[in-house]
């Protein structure tokens, strides 16, 4: 029994390490409204070690990422995003971080697409 459990654990270990992709694609929603937000969001994501590519789409609010799963995960990226004041579905930015975003990026008041203005 011991050996079987060990074998199962080993197998699982192998599977999970294979599942850790060096070029893992992920997308999730990040709140924001304009080009300035886009720059702030992408910059915050790319500043997380292991994030190779980050593009935030203004109308859909989707952040598309390619990350090295050995180095980071979605929660770490979301933590970085709320750190610069941008809410995700799961994590909300602290009031302090939100107060630091430019007045024209105050998406909580009115979450519209403002790309033409900035």
């Amino acid at each position, binding site marked *: *029994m011991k050996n079987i*459990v060990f074998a199962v654990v080993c197998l699982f270990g192998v599977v999970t390490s294979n599942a850790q992709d060096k070029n893992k694609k992920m997308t999730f929603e990040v709140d924001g409204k304009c080009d300035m937000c886009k720059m702030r969001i992408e*910059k915050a994501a790319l500043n997380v070690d292991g994030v190779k590519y*980050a593009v935030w789409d203004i109308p859909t609010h989707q952040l598309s990422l390619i990350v090295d799963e050995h180095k980071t995960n979605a929660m770490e990226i979301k933590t970085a995003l709320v750190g610069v004041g941008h809410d995700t*579905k*799961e994590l909300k930015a602290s009031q302090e971080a939100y107060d630091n975003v430019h007045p024209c990026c105050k998406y909580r008041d009115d979450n519209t697409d403002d790309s033409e203005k900035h």
Partner: protein
Amino acid sequence: MKYILILFLSLPISIIAQDGIKGMVMEANAENKHIGLAGANVYWLNSQIGTMTKDDGTFSIPYSKEYNKLIISFVGFQTDTLTIEKPRMVHHWLQPSNQLDEVVVQQERDAIQKTYFSAQNVVTVNSAELLKAACCNLSESFETNPAIDVNFNDALTGTKQIQMLGLTSPYLLITQENIPMVRGASQAYGLTFTPGTWVESIQITKGAGSVVNGYESISGQINTELQKPLMDTPIFVNGYANLNGRLELNTHINRKLSDKWSTGFYIHGNRRDVEVDNNDDGFLDAPLANQINIANRWQYQNPEKGWVSFFNVRFLNDEKQVGQTDFNPDMDKFTTNTWGSKIDTRRFDSSLKLGYVFPESPYQSFGFQVAYSKHKQDSFYGFNVYDIDHESVYSNFLFNSIIGNTKNKFKTGLTLAYDGYDELVNNQNFGRVDQSLGAFFEYSYTNLEKLSLTAGLRVDTHNRLGTFITPRLHVRYTPWEKGSLRGSFGVGRRAANIFAENQKLFASSRAIRLVQNDGNIYGFDAEKAFNYGVSFLQGFSLFNRPGNVTVDYYRTDFENQVVVDWENPREVVFSNLEGKSFANSLQFEINHEVLPNVELRAAYKYYDVKTDFQTGLLQKPLQARNRYFANIGYNTNEKENGSQWRFDYTLHALGQQRLPDTSSNPEEFRLGEFSDAYSLMNAQITKVFSKKFEIYLGGENLTNFRQNNPVLGAEDPFGANFDTTIVFAPILGRMVYAGFRFKS
């Protein structure tokens, strides 16, 4: 043993379960039925602790006193935040969100776009801007743009030569879809070989360009993107006629053959067979011309696999006849009956481009391009014979990727080029072969906000230029909002094609003298120049309408240049530079929507371009030190069916220009030291009837300003004083044109 193991495994679960929160997330409904939502996100605010609901909508999540806000979210529902003070059961209904998923963004793009974020000083001119002047070909596409100056080349052909930063087009790299295009044998007339309607957009880079496109660019780069079969309209027809007898017809036929393949046929023809001599000097004011230009493009696009490809072929036949109005080439060629010239060009171009974007990593791609062209020009100017055949092969392989993340990108690749020339100048053959192999690496950095940088280096080995290194550097810094400060530095090198670039010298009695110094190129050393500059762009909003101001200053220093000295009216002397040669250029430009739908663009340019000629350090001849430019465009609002009026007015004012020395000529053939200042006005009105049909009417040189004596010694073209090279103003007077565009 077995039980101990089970106990161990279940222990952590039971610990969480004790202090955890259990609950169920449900879809809100009128009856308050318990319809579980599977896959909803349940997270603690500002933590990394979260879970998802199971198939029946239930969940359990560990609880800790640090957290008290529980967030529940699901795509298509409003996200809710619950305040939780102590562990308890949570039953929550999520409300469907009323927001529409699709948002259509429509934005009007400016006809001229200046980049705030790129490291290079690039101006993109799109097709809306190109329609402001009903340009017949690429050389006329720059009339409404202050970055490029249009100069008149010679009295016979009236070919417009362009210049940037005070330097003529040989010092500019002119590319078509990033393949070097107007160079070598086509330097003098090449810009007239791309019909205006074929052009989709133009990118103008001021200052040293990228190392990716080679070592030849010195003062800047002009890249032309042609219409793409997939994007262009299925049928496009444009007809044009002007009162000086020029007729033009452009037809595009594009077909989408499958999801992946499209093809397009582009046919251009123009002719002028009306003899115009408004100044009564016996010489044609504009050439009799005939051009047929046919291209076929194939486009392949496979977004799933990441492949993009273009294959192009083009054939051109261009004939020009210039000289005295009575000249008949069949009877008068190489006789002293009348003076005339014919320039016949045939050209074949083909190119293949392949691009691949790795589907798993969109920041990684490679591109390969190969182009072959054969250019054959047979010409005579009076008794001077000039024939040139130029066969060219160019290929470039490029790989793009990142270092760590997309803030650090690089491009690297190889360039292979071959140019075979068979050149006959009167009885002398200047045949030669140029071969080069180069490797390049370009690194670019952006911190996505304040700073971006592009640094490139290439190493080339060339059979006549030797082995050399070309560094280029571009930096951009944003000190505050909408401000962009740029700096650039670069080195460029070039083997001057002295005859092809200065063909106008054949239409004079000037003797051609080469003061050689055992160099490899016509006995000269290759040209080498350093270009550096700074520019500042500031966007603003005045009366709630956008605008921007640009100031830039560039300097080019030649270490080695093939100097063309026209200062003795009896000869043209080519020699390598001894002493100094530099070009300083200062430009101030403002763009603003001054009234609703009224765009104003105004610019002032100052050029200080000097070269050590045999007679000393002199300002470059036939170039105005001061230039002013203004363009006003007004559009009425587009109606539902697409109908609209468009008005456009352009003013060019040029200060006095230094003329080459003619003081040793007999008195009647002397010109002043400087030409007078003058201004030119162009205007155009376009009536758009619908998205399918529009007509335009316009005029160039509306004040009818002309240089009154463009041909010196016109009475005796075989005499010693015959000279058509000193041209500083239009020869053709007012020109009225009209045309239509049909799209379907």
